[in-house]
């Protein structure tokens, strides 16, 4: 009989104990994979959200830049209004590739839900906005005909909620104004999916906001010194410059701080399971004191005994790791939904990103932990002397 067969039989003989140990390891692996997956998913979703905005700099009226950026990301309304002149003043700057003025407006719709709800509209520049958001593809129709068209382009989720197709009408509650739907966007997995786009001039006219905007999205030319350009923009009066690179970096720094805590939790979970594994295997060694002694008296070398115990540990950790990682992968979407419901701000897309690479990494980590955990019990078993073991049992 080979060593690994003996190890397998030993584990199989103590079903309850082995199962409980495997559950402990599986839970640790689940926590480890989910936490690392969340860290990766959050970072990549946030980066994608910011990159997909299509511009590197946003100008808003003076206020907290991060609050403003968050509001933009969440599709909310701006804090204050800017004069439209700000955009025309910088449009001819050599650093500017293109820019889009934006005006967000929200109205109360009394016929939404039990007690009413908010409908939001995003005014954009029809000449530039589509070129800045090249990733937006149409499921039906196209962008607006002109700057002042009474037309709307709907993100897929907005269109689905409103059951709109090209040619249908939408009505702005409280304003009694009809717009024709000219385009339905494909799903992009970004905040644009839930947005109703209208030409900025039309939004200004409908809401009586002529000459006012809530923001300017700026796409800069390649090779532009961003720091210098931002410095230049800071000199504009009453204008807040929000650099998407800065926002991204700041949020990612916060996420990195959180990562330390997250990994600490994972390490604690792993240490707990490691102690559990050592305890289980050590108990098993003490219980089989005599058996090991007999094996040795029959010619088994200390190295054989060491490997037998070591293999037991590795089998437990491998099975636990595999189960835990599978659970983490299968439940990653549900975990993402739960985390999203808890977080005050979560980017779009998958919040928990678990791919085969991560599964292999965490599985190997758990196996390595198995190897480490098994050293002490295996060493103890290997040092058992046959005479002592038989005498002790007597």
């Amino acid at each position, binding site marked *: 009989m080979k060593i690994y067969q003996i190890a397998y039989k030993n584990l199989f003989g103590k079903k309850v104990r082995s199962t409980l140990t495997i559950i402990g390891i599986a839970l640790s692996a689940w926590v480890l994979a989910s936490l690392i997956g969340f860290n990766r998913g959050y970072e990549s979703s946030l980066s994608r959200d910011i990159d997909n905005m299509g511009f590197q700099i946003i100008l808003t009226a003076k206020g907290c830049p991060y609050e403003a950026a968050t509001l933009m990301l969440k599709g909310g309304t701006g804090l204050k209004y800017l004069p439209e002149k700000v955009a025309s003043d910088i449009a001819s700057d050599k650093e500017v590739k293109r820019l889009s003025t934006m005006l967000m407006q929200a109205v109360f719709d009394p016929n*939404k839900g039990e007690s009413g709800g908010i409908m939001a509209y995003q005014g954009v520049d029809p000449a530039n906005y589509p070129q800045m958001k090249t990733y937006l593809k149409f499921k039906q129709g196209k962008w607006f005909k002109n700057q002042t068209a009474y037309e709307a382009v709907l993100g897929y989720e907005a*269109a689905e909620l409103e059951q709109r197709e090209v040619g249908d009408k939408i009505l702005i509650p409280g304003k009694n104004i009809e717009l024709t739907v000219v385009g*339905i966007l494909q799903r992009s997995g970004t905040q644009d999916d839930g947005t109703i786009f209208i030409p900025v001039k039309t939004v200004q006219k409908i809401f009586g906001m002529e000459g006012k905007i809530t923001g300017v999205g700026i796409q800069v030319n390649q090779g532009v010194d961003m720091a210098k350009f931002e410095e230049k923009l800071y000199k504009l009066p009453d204008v807040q410059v929000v650099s998407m690179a800065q926002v991204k970096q700041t949020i990612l720094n916060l996420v990195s701080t959180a990562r330390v805590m997250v990994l600490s939790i994972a390490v604690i979970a792993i240490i707990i399971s490691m102690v559990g594994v050592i305890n289980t295997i050590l108990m098993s060694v003490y219980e089989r004191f005599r058996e090991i002694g007999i094996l040795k008296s029959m010619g088994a070398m200390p190295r054989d005994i060491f490997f037998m115990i070591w293999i037991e540990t590795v089998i437990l950790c491998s099975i636990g790791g595999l189960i835990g990682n*599978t659970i983490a992968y299968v439940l990653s979407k549900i975990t993402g939904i739960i985390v999203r419901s808890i977080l005050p701000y979560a980017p779009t897309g*998958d919040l928990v990103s678990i791919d085969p690479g991560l599964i292999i990494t965490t599985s190997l980590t758990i196996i390595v932990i198995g190897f480490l955990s098994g050293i002490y019990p295996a060493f103890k078993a290997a040092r058992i002397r046959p005479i002592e073991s038989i005498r002790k049992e007597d």
Partner: protein
Amino acid sequence: MKQIFLSLIIILAYNGTTFAATGCDLNDPDRDVRRLFPGSTGYKTDYVSIDKKGGEKLLSVVEQKLGDRFSGLYETIDVPYTIYTIFRGKQKVGYIHGVNQKGKYGGIQVFLVLNMKGTIMNFYYQKLTGRSASRLRTAAFGKQFVGLSLADFMQYDPVSGKAKGRVAVIRNHAPDAENDFKATLRGVKKNLILMNVFVYGNN
């Protein structure tokens, strides 16, 4: 061992990213269920789609009963419908179910509160956009549906908009919103048919 691997592959394959159609959920189920079904003490949520329940064959059954084809970008076979099963204590006392229906200016969300026999106990527009929406959202308009069932709505033809029997006496409180009124009746009929094939047909 082979079976374990096979199961694992199936589980992993199903976990891929898919974008399915969106259904019609209550905005705030805890609050809405209590309000729509007074005396209820709890609810259970189930998601059902024609696709998973019976596929194309079931779709044709639904369309035949409806007297109209499913059409447009969003009225598709894979729309997940949310069925709220209502409990009073441990006893199942009814259901709440909503559907999306295309209206003139936006999506109409028509929710019906049904007893265990499939009779309408309450009617709720969760969403309706239009100049006369407030007149259709009155309690008086909704009350006209109370007591009706699928048997009554089988006498309504959504294509011609003609009705017989008890559905014919439902009065449009907003004559200038005839499209939305007819869309509502179609939505109610579709709702009852879906509940019939998803729930009552199986009882």
